[in-house]
């Protein structure tokens, strides 16, 4: 029982740090770079990915014994596309401004390697409970990185966090942080710091 508890904890924590999708696996780079201009879109993207990841892992885990090897990727894509469309419709219905801000990057979750990777590596080989824990761990790990990246960029580009001004009065905004170059530089520095912490060479 104790071993099982530890393995569940490890499964969850793997997504947060040891196998963090952005820092360690370098998966889902497209939304990581594109939507992290501020914390709000980063958080919305992260929550959408958690929803899709959990739902697709549940479906794949439930049908894992029925999957034919040559049809499995097709089945993964079918289930992922369904849940991404539901998330997209939800945002269009209840958060239309955020939906417009995220633009094509929300539907592009369909081709996010992270989700197919977890379906293939975890959900198709494990039971429902482990698959859900893995989805939450990976999803939360992905969301945390997006929020930190979005927070740094929003702070330096506008002097605010969650649109609340926090910098001093004469702060000169770094407009470059809103641009793609800001995303690449910030993510590169963050990856460098993480590699330093883990003692791994960049």
């Amino acid at each position: 029982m104790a071993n099982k508890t530890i393995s569940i904890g490890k499964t969850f924590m793997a997504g947060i740090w040891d196998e963090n999708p952005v820092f360690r696996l370098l998966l889902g780079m497209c939304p990581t770079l594109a939507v992290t201009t501020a914390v709000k879109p980063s958080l919305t993207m992260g929550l959408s990915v958690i929803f899709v990841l959990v739902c697709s892992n549940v479906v794949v885990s439930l049908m894992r014994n029925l999957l034919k090897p040559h049809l499995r990727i097709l089945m993964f894509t079918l289930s992922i596309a369904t849940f991404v469309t539901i998330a997209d419709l939800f945002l269009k219905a209840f958060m239309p401004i955020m939906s417009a801000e995220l633009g094509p990057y929300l539907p592009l979750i369909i081709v996010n390697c992270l989700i197919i990777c977890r379906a293939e590596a975890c959900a198709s080989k494990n039971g429902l409970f482990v698959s859900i824990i893995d989805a939450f761990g990976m999803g939360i790990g992905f969301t945390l990185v997006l929020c930190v990246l979005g927070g740094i960029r929003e702070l330096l580009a506008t002097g605010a966090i969650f649109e609340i001004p926090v910098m001093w009065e004469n702060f000169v905004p770094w407009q470059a942080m809103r641009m793609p170059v800001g995303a690449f530089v910030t993510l590169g520095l963050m990856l460098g710091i993480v590699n330093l912490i883990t003692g791994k060479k960049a």
Partner: protein
Amino acid sequence: MFRLVRYYIKQSWLLVVSAFVFGLLLAVTNSIWSGRIEQNKNDKLDNLMSGLIADAEFAPAISDIQIDCAKGKFVKVNVYKAADKSGRSKGFCFNASGAGFADKIELVIAVDAKFEKVLGYNVLSSNETPGFGDQIDDYYFCSQFSGAPVGQLVLNKSGDSKIINSEIIAISGATVSSDAVVSIFNSFVEQVKAKTQEEGLLSDGK
């Protein structure tokens, strides 16, 4: 033959059943939220139209007219009539769209009651490059259309942007996006004017 059909069914039944179930799930979700999504779109359109023609009430004038955008492409356009409280016509608004640099650009265009001058435009949706193409929404570019004559507009890379005529000065670094907006105007405005005339809606501002 029967064995082959059986083999295919055995291989693909899960995919077929899943496609049906997921399709049903999407259909149900869409039917539940489609009304709200449509309402959001209408609210956004109302806001944008109110920004172009102030203190006016908008009523649909012509629905789903087909506008020829060349290369065999037709776009459905809805024309709204703007009237003040006394019912006097203040102008018309209609949707228009065309290919931009990154994606489709959708605009709401406003013209005066006689369809002789453009009152302005607002961007309904676009995914143009941040910092460059997305400046089609900025005052520098938008203001050049306010008061421009209805007719073919010309895009120039340099000139005085404060002179209001049929010459539009492009956004520096975003010529493709600027050209896209001018092309949308050139494709839609005159055709919508012709349709509005056919319907007998252009009547001395009344």
